[in-house]
């Protein structure tokens, strides 16, 4: 069974916020809610890196543990979803989540919390696939169409990866291996640090004389 995961490659992310925009547009999320955000660390300083973060669809999700009404469930694809009909908007998942994924539309007096909204991995909700109710509450259900989340699909640098965890980790592993030059640029000796695969050039020369 495929297990769906996001992975964001900070070496590739260019902080264009296209994933945020794409998500907001595709899922028509409520005002004041962003299911995905790009965070830049050391902005303007050496070592600046950006990361796009949303719900990480944890295998053992803290939000699901603390929910007082038990509205979370994990799909067969390993996507963590929640039932907005059951959610009471208490905010406990927001306190427990390591990634700040649960968002609350400002609802009621003094901006008390409405029903929680978070990234669904473009997998909709508990309602029937592609039903109007599902779209209204959770946004689009691309997984049911055999598509992957739009944020990752449209990432221009392919920094944000989404899909089967096995494939994602393979892709990322290959990138790491092929990053010898980037490692060299960090002041570590080429010989010691390069993971560049050997090219089998032993004994070869441009001239034999």
């Amino acid at each position, binding site marked *: 069974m495929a297990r769906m995961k996001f992975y964001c490659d900070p070496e590739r992310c260019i902080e264009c916020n296209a994933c945020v925009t794409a998500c907001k547009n595709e899922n028509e999320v409520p005002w004041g809610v962003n299911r995905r955000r790009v965070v830049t660390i050391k902005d303007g300083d050496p070592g600046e890196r950006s990361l796009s973060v949303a719900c990480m669809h944890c295998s053992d999700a803290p939000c699901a543990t603390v929910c007082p009404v038990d509205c979370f469930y994990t799909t067969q694809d390993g996507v963590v979803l929640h039932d907005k009909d059951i959610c009471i908007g208490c*905010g406990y998942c927001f306190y427990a989540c390591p990634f700040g994924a649960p968002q609350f539309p400002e609802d009621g007096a003094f901006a008390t919390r409405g029903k929680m909204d978070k990234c669904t991995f473009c997998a909709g909700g508990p309602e029937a696939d592609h039903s109007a109710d599902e779209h209204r509450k959770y946004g689009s259900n691309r997984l049911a169409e055999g598509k992957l989340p739009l944020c990752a699909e449209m990432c221009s640098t392919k920094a944000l990866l989404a899909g089967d965890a096995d494939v994602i980790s393979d892709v990322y592993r290959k990138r790491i291996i092929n990053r010898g030059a980037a490692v060299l640029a960090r002041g570590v000796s080429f010989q010691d640090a390069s993971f560049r695969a050997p090219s089998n050039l032993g004994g070869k020369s441009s001239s034999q004389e």
Partner: protein
Amino acid sequence: MRTPAHHKTVPHALGVFGIYLLGLCLLLFSTLVDAQEKQPKELPTVQMMNPAAEFWRDVRQRSAPVSGKTQVGGVETGVLINATGDRWRQFRMSQLIPISGYILGGMVILLVAFYAIRGRVPIEGGMSEHKLPRYTGYERMIHWFMASIFIFLAVTGLILLFGRPLLIPVLGKEGFSILASASKEGHNLMGPLFLLALVMIIIQFVRRNIYQKGDLSWLIRGGGIIGKKHVPSNFFNMGEKTMFWLLVFVGGLIGVSGLILVFPVLGLGREIMALAHVGHAIGAILMITVIIGHIYIGTVGMEGAIEGMKTGYCDLNWAKEHHDLWASKAEENGEALSNQEVAKMRGDRGSVPPVHSGLQESGK
């Protein structure tokens, strides 16, 4: 002859000495050269951190809290990993819910056991013919105002705390969601009224709740539980005073932390919110435990204890047994009233002529 011979030996000795000296110099020099060769490696070097490793360290908030920059507004959106969330989750799931369950259940069991062993604390002298005015109408009103709000908040709060393990198996998720939603909204709306009631209670009762001389002996003798003998006390005894101050401080804590929790619009971080939740929960469990005892004494635990709050008058014998210092002084002041007088003032059945209804003014 001797001299040349001697002369001949000197250069020889010098030569030997020179060779030794040369060897020594070479040795020294070689070590110096060796030392010089090692010198460049100790030149000041720039420590190169691995930026990727540094980045993940910052993301994980390992060394210090790091907040990045983001275009998305909101609370702590620049923080990539919320380091405090897991601690709060563990507190709530593996400490708060089970331990508070044991505490509340234990308190109930304790009271049942106490009742089984000691039974209802009677008025030893029996009901007397006289009563003392104990609480004014306003005092009773704010007490029951506080009581009704407290019970509502306690019940709705406990539903939210224990609903998932206890009520979802009974009601199902959908059914419990309705109850939980109602509880949450009711809890949030009624919460501020608790603070209002608290302020009214404090203003009205604070002067009688300042600790006095006899209170320590009350505590030492366990409020009369130890030794089966009543301990004299003033208008409020040590236990009541302690409950009052618990209500003031713990209730105040519950109220303030509740306001923090109910106003996410203040934009406080998750750590403060989680901390407010911890304070709110611990304070509430403590207060509920104390109030269970309070209700026990008022309802089944003690004869005559609730009379003052119900009618405004308490039995003279009860007052003398439980609040001797106050009762004797009040009796000296001639505040004691006969039961008939009290019944008349309260308009109890039989003491006043029946009210005829249907005597509205008519134009005809």
